[in-house]
């Protein structure tokens, strides 16, 4: 009965959404705010990539909110996972990766770091920015953990380092915002001039902000994935399937 009811309701919802979609304007949205931003962004913020201009300039507090959402999720995961780990310590974590994975990880790590930082620093020029670069950095560190899980499955990543980077990067972001507030302007107002459009050192504080975002996201997600990796495999009561060797 439950499935029938859910099918009926979902079909109804789909039909209604399509009815609404039919009445919506196709392909020519009323570019009120969007149009104004497209015109004023190069002048006011001076970033080539207008999306980053909006992301870190016009809607800066949204990004701060989103940053803190990711931080909240990581901390909540820490709250949930870290607690129980101490008591059942038998960390039958995965076996160390095969030869190919280990050499591949060693080769990939530096490359990933370069690509990550490139994307972060050029956030205001080319597509990309703090979040994408941060995830790539996290992937870089996690590849090492996958290659050599080590005894407790954390592959030697020190959580204190992660905590420090995460905390200071977040604080950096807010410090830049407060600095502009203290400087008489508004919170998160762009500072340090516009620079030359298209140059690396253009668009004032935007690169600094995206660097802070990148570092914070990178550290957070690396910590998150490592915490997940450190969990003992399988449910408490032994499961026939737990011992077989995954690839």
């Amino acid at each position, binding site marked *: 009965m*439950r499935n029938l009811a*859910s099918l009926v309701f979902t079909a*109804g*919802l789909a039909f*209604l959404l399509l009815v609404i979609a039919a009445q919506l304007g196709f392909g020519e949205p009323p570019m009120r705010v969007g149009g104004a931003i497209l015109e004023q962004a190069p002048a006011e913020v001076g970033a080539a990539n207008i999306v980053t201009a909006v992301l870190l300039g016009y809607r800066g507090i949204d990004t701060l909110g989103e940053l803190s959402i990711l931080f909240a999720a990581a901390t909540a995961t820490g709250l949930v996972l870290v607690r129980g780990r101490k008591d059942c310590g038998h960390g039958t974590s995965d076996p160390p990766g095969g030869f190919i994975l280990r050499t591949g990880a060693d080769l990939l790590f530096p490359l990933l770091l370069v690509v990550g930082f490139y994307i972060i620093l050029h956030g205001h020029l080319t597509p990309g920015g703090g979040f994408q670069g941060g995830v790539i950095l996290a992937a870089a560190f996690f590849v090492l953990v996958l290659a050599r899980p080590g005894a407790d499955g954390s592959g030697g990543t020190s959580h204190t380092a992660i905590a420090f980077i995460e905390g200071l990067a977040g604080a950096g972001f807010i410090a830049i915002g407060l600095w502009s507030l203290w400087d008489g302007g508004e919170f998160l107002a762009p500072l340090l001039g516009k620079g030359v459009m298209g140059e690396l050192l253009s668009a004032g504080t935007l690169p600094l902000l995206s660097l802070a975002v990148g570092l914070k996201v990178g550290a957070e997600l690396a910590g998150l994935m490592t915490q997940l990796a450190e969990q003992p495999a399988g449910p408490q009561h032994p499961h026939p399937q737990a011992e077989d060797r995954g690839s």
Partner: protein
Amino acid sequence: MQLPALPLPALPALPLPGALTPLDLLFAAAAATLLLALLLGRWRMAGPLMVMGYGVQFWLLLETGTLRGEPMTAAMRFEILGHALGWRYDALSWFFAMITIGAGFVSAWYAGGGWQGLYRSQGHGPRLFHVALAANVLSMLLLVGSGDFLSLFIGWELVSWASFLLMAVAGGIAAQAALRYVTYAFAGAMAVLGALVLIYGVTGSFSYADFAAAVPTITNGQLWVLVALLVGGFGVKLGLIPLHLWQAPAYAETPGPGSAFLGAISARMGLYAIVVVFVALVGIGRLVQMEIPYTFISARELLCWIAALTIIFPTYTALQQHDARYLLAWHGIGQGGYMLLGLLVGTANGSAGGLLHVFNYAITQAALLMAVFAVMYRTGTADLNKLGGLFTRMPITFVVLLIGIISLAGLPPMAGFVSKWLVYRSLIAAEMPFLFVASVIGTLGTILSVYKLIHNIFLGQLRLEHEQVREAPVSLLAPMLGLSTVIFLAGVFPGPALSWVAEVQRALGLEVISYTLGGVESPQGSIDMVWLVGVLFAGFGVGALVFYGFGGKSKRVHQLDNYAGGHFLTADVRYHYSDNFYAGLMHLIGGLYKGGFRWLEGTVTSTVDMLSFSTVGVYRYVQPTLFLLAAAAVMLAWVVL
């Protein structure tokens, strides 16, 4: 009936102390008594102090002089959220306030005396009792003085919660009965709130005058809704027939003088509210015009028949009770029917009978309950099957109970007779024979049950364990005897009581009864109690003369110095049957008692139980996201289509 509009000068919220009218002083005195009870309740001398408090209130009430003078508006007036809130006293309020304070005075006097020791030994502190009593009196004074619908509702809520406090003071069974009462009372209060708000919707304000002016324009349909809601809401307190199940256990289980106070006046607050709304504002005439289609019954007849049923059913339930307190509590419901019936007849005699019965029955119920509690004080139980023959040990309590049951049954020398006679007379004069027959059946039931009451307690064989029982202490006897003399005097000289009732009728705009010191002088029927009682006592006098003068040969012997059927009496054999007193009658009419109303209450409770079971099912559903999806689909459908 035109209660003049409240003169509402733009007074600041709290008036200056200088402009305090005696009415404000009355409220202040009532609040002071409450405070006194709160602070000094545990002190041994708290009882007399409280009595003094009620005395001061009584004196201040007389000071307001609103019985005969023009109505007085309290300086205490509020303007909250745009609604005016004021209090005023007229003759009607004076009458009910007088009875309230009188009942409070007598109860406090009774509680202050010997009864306090017994109550303390049962592990309860008297402080909470005195606080509850004082809170009840204060809230009732506020209710009867309400100047507009908002203060009426506020007073109504305060009264129902204060009586909950008084009922729940003893805890245990009383608390359960009080909880049942609160459910009834609050459902009733919500009905009243619904009605008041509908009135606000129609007239745009809470004042009586606007409603009185708008009554002719209100359609019958709307008025029927108001009647249903308001009579239902106020009827809960009065104990009208379908809503009466809570009253007997709640009033009976309340400790001692509290039960006397509740029995005397608390239920009559429902009557006051019905009088204010239907007799004063809507008017009996308008009720007569509200015909139920396809039947000849009008709203008034319907209410009269509800009142008649309220007289019959509880009285015959009282027959079956084996606990004296429950018997009297069930009678409380029955007598309420008389008062409503009298007022609904609307003629001079009828409404006078109804209003007088409020006073008469208040003093009768208080005296009877105090007598029963005196018996409980001495013997520890009020169970009719465990008592008997206390006439020899507690003669004064016997006399008080005797006077009380005579008045309750409505027999001549006592006060109850006058008001019941007026109600009967008005029923006959208003051509309502079937209602007259119903009320006479009610009186028959009353007579039977009161006889059971006095027989099982005082007459018959004295039990072994009650040999050493002594008369109740003087501190209990004094208020009982005081009340008995009032009952007797109100019976012999109904003039003063009738004068109050006449003033109330004038305030309500009804036809005023023409009264004399001895009774009533009117074309529909006249009676002169002084002459009647004189003849009665002349008869007694002749009988006593003959008995003592010529006879007087009786010799007092011990109850067991006797023989029956050739056998000598022994102490362990019961010759005095008190269990299942009216077996024959019950066999005859037992079929009517299937507990119809209990079944009605059961259905309501089980529907609520079933509904809540299904709603909890909703909240424990396996897949909560289904509801979210369903809500989205339904809301979009409602919006788009």
